[in-house]
Structure formats: C-alpha cells, structure tokens
C-alpha cells in the first residue's frame, strides 16, 4: 500500500531542522536590505529625537529673544554657539524648534495614516469580499473622494474648524484613505478567488471567519507597506497646510510653518528655509525607504 516507505531515500530529503517560516525568511531578508535598514535607522532616530526632545534641545522652542533675531548658524559670520543653527525672526533658537518639530510631524504622520488605514482597509475588505452593491457603493465613494481636491478641502476645513493638531490629524486622515482602499480591495478580490478560500467555505466557515483567518493575514504585509508611505504623505500634507497658513498655527514649531515664517528673510538668511525642508525630506525619505524595503522583503521579486 505504501508508495513511499519511510526508509526510502526520498523521505530523507530535506533538512533536519525546521525549514524557515515566511516570517523568518522575511527577517533574514530585512537584515540584508540596505534601503530598509537606512529607512528604519532614520525613522528610529527621529522618533527618539521626538521623544527625548526636552533633553536634546538647548532651549525652549517658544523662548523669544528679540535682540537675537535672525542670527545665522554658528559657522557663519555673526553666528554664535548659543544658537547653533541660528534664530528665527522672533529670536527663537532654530535648532530647538527643529527638534520639537519632529513631534509635530511624526505625531500627525502616524495619526493620520492610522485613521486612513482604519477607514480604507475596512471599506476595501468589505467591498472586495462581498462585491455586489457594497462594491458599487464603495467604488462610488472612492471616485468621489478621488475627485475631491483634497488639499483644498483640507485647507478650508482645518482653517474653518480651527487649526489644532487633532483637527489636522483627523482631516488629513479622512482625506487619505484611498490608497489603502484601492490596494486592499483588489488584493481581497484576488485572495477570495483562490482555492483555499473556497476550501474554507466548503468546510463551513462563515464570511467573518474567512476574512479574519484567511484574508487579513495575507493582506498584512501590503497594508504595512502602504502605511509607511501614507505616513510620509501625511507629513508632507501637514507641512503644506502649515506653510500656506491654514494648518498648524504659530507659535507651535511645525516645519512647514517655519518655512513660511522664514520665507520673508530667505534671500539673506536662506538657512531658515533650507533647514526645515531638509528635516522634512529626511523624515519622509526614511518612511519611503522603509516602505520600499518592506515591500521588497515581503514579496521578493516584485520591485516596483
């Protein structure tokens, strides 16, 4: 009756130890992926900066010093080491403001992306799994959302309701779930068509059980990738809003706002504009590199 006897060499094929799980393989790939490591390092450092801001910043970001307005950075003529990166038009230490700015950007980035995730993934899975009128309705809402000029509406709403961090997080979050939806929906549709979902249904699983047990675990890595990208997008969105004056308001140190404030003096004090931009650039690149890295790690061979 046996085609393969236990002593036949064929059954000895393979390793003695347990072969690595997909999770372990991913971790091994992560350790070799430069982009991921750089991105993770950047994000981690900036998060630490945000958390330990009070210990790292030489001054309070709100402390004004009118006699010391518009000082250049320490290495330029006229600069002083008390204010290593110079001061802004109100005499506030730029380095301290930049450091505290990480709190604003990171909080808003993570918060808005989380809201986007919750809305987008929920709608995406429901639309992708159940199809039918739910899908039609969600597609309509999606198209409407895409047609909405997001920045414009965000500007208007934040300004009208009252610019505070919570409002900014919510508004940006609610206007940035489309990417989550689109990817989750098509991935759910694809997974749903695979035989193991049919097998689960044939075993008597309910829709809820199938979504939790079969579909979501297979979506996890895609969702993480999108999340990291959305963090970057949210950070830039807040920066734009604050720059235009319809986001975070003075005196809170938001990098976008700092750039707007520095704009008047930018021809003779370019650092006021350059420095916050560099911080924004580095933070968002960190998030994007991590996103690209996670994508490469969890689905190798799909570089896009």
């Amino acid at each position: 009756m046996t085609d393969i006897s236990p002593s036949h060499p064929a059954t000895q094929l393979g390793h003695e130890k347990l072969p690595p799980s997909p999770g372990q393989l991913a971790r091994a790939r992560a350790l070799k992926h430069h982009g991921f490591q750089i991105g993770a390092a950047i994000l981690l450092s900036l998060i630490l900066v945000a958390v330990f801001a009070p210990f790292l910043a030489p001054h309070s970001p709100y402390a004004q010093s009118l006699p010391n307005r518009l000082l250049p950075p320490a290495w330029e003529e006229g600069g002083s080491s008390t204010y290593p990166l110079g001061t802004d038009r109100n005499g506030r230490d730029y380095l301290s403001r930049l450091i505290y700015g990480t709190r604003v950007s990171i909080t808003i980035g993570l918060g808005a992306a989380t809201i986007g995730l919750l809305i987008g993934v929920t709608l995406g899975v429901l639309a992708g799994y159940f199809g039918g009128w739910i899908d039609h309705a969600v597609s309509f809402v999606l198209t409407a959302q895409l047609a909405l000029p997001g920045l414009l509406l965000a500007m208007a709403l934040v300004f009208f309701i009252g610019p505070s961090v919570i409002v900014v997080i919510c508004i940006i979050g609610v206007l940035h779930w489309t990417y989550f939806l689109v990817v989750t929906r098509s991935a759910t549709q694809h997974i749903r068509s695979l035989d193991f979902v049919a097998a689960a249904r044939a075993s008597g699983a309910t829709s809820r059980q199938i979504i939790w047990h079969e579909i979501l675990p297979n979506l996890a890595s895609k969702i993480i990738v999108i999340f990291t990208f959305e963090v970057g997008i949210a950070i830039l969105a807040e920066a734009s809003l604050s720059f235009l004056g319809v986001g975070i308001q003075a005196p809170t140190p938001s990098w976008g706002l700092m750039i707007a404030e520095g704009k008047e003096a930018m021809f003779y004090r370019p650092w006021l504009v350059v420095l916050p931009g560099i911080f924004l650039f580095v933070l968002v690149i960190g998030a994007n590199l991590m996103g690209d890295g996670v994508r490469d790690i969890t689905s190798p061979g799909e570089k896009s």
Partner: protein
Amino acid sequence: MLKYVLQRGALALAVAFTVSLAAFLLLNIATDAAYAIAGEEADPDVIERIRVQYGLDRPLMVRYADWLGGVVRGDFGDSYYWRKPVASLVAERVGTTIKLALSALFVTIIIAIPLGALAALNRNTWVDRSALAVAVAAQAVPNFWLGLIMIILFAVMLPLFPVSGDSTWRHFVMPAFVLGASSVPAVMRLMRTGLIEVMESDYIRTARSKGYRGASLLMRHALRNALLPVVSVLAVQLGQKLGGSVTTENVFAISGLGRLALQSILGADIPTVQLLIFLFALVFVAMNLLADILNAALDPRIRIG
C-alpha cells in the same frame, strides 16, 4: 459605444455633484458664513441681519438646492469677500492655471517616461538604481520647499528666471518644473513596471523568436503595450494638477485658481471655495472619462469585443 459614454458621463456628473454636496455641507457646518461676511467683531444684531439678508438662516439642504439651481442656470453666486460674481473671479484666472498645468504635464512626460523606460531596460544596473533613487527623492521633497530652493538658486544666486509672477513664459519654467516633478515618481514607476512586464511577456518572446531585437523590438513591439496604462494615468494626473497647483501658485505668486483658492479660504469666502471644489471635481471626472476613452481607442481588446 455611445450608450457606454453616456452612462459613464452620467456617472461622472453624479460624482461631481456628490462632491459638491459634500463640500457644501462640510464648509457650511465648519463655519458660519455670516461671521465671514460681517466680520468677526460685529454686533450680534448685525450678524443676525446679515444672516437673513443672505438667506443663511434657511436649512442647509434648501440652500444647497438653491446653489444647485444657480449652477444649472449658470449663476454661481457672488463672492462674500470680493463682492463680485464668483464666475468672473474664476474666469479671470483659469487660463493661467491651465497654462501651468499643461506645462507641468509636459515636464512630467519628458522626465518620467524616458527615465522609466531606461530603468526597465537596464534592470538592476546602476541606471535602474539611480532612476529609482531619483523617484524616491522626488517623492520625499515637499514641493513648496523645492519651489523656494529653486527660487534661491535660479532666481537669486543665478539670475536665470524671475522670482515670481506670471507675465512671461519665463515665469512658468520653474513652477512647471516643481509641479511636474511631483508626479514624476509615480509615472516613472508605472512606466518601469509596465515595460518590465511587457518585456517578459510571451508575445515579446514570440517577436524575439522571429529575429526582432534591440531598438526595433522595443519600438515596434513593446512600447505601445507599455504606454497603454501610462496614457490613461497621465490624463488623470492632468486633472489632479489643478488641485495640486495650490502650493506652487502660492510660492511663485501666480495668479491662477490655486492662489484664488488660498485667498478665498483665508477670507472665509465660501461661495468661491465651493465653486472651486466643484470645478476641480468636474475636471477630474472629465479627465477620468477621457482616460477611459483613450484606453478604448488604443486597446483593441476594449474597442472591439
């Protein structure tokens, strides 16, 4: 075919109007227009009078229906802030924004498509990696900041272009670059992925087996297939450029719709904001429809059953 276009057109209009409804409700809930008109410090009586005078005391849906009726007639209301018909405000500025959007699209095309193609054809070499690095960097740069940096570099340090304004074509070079650059990463990646897929397809293998190689293989067999999805994305991008022009126009002081948008918001001028949102939504869905039609025209699988 006509039936399809009509169906999609109707859907597009429905979407645009839904957007306008959502915007109307949100805007009018978020703020009280009466304060905007009267001024923040005005007396409560004055505010009350203004409310009645402008019909702001009526229920929201009635006011929306009013607005809708106006739109159908071509009357888009008057601006609270400028005390002029909103339509004329828009008409004065729309040309400028269109110029900006088209030049930005041009910039995106001449950078993203060759870059994406080069990356695809030289996969995993330094060419590919540099192209991807450019994409990653461009995605992370705040576009208003890029604008300011360019002004510092190319208008002040090297006086190549004017700092701001919109009178000559020179004024549009930097803004077009900044606005166009923001779409480059997405379009480049799309081109790259699409071309890679095409080059690895079975029908390219068939072409190779007939002796096609190198440039002729690419031009005759691969490019058209790879460009198909890109074309429709570009159409949609054009629609989005209108919304995205807000920051660029403000940085470069270009008197287009984007600048108007900011000014209206700061001035709590709801009718203008409302119209702008509706307009942008309308353009977006129209571009989407255009993309669908282009797709059908270029792809025989859709054109012929």
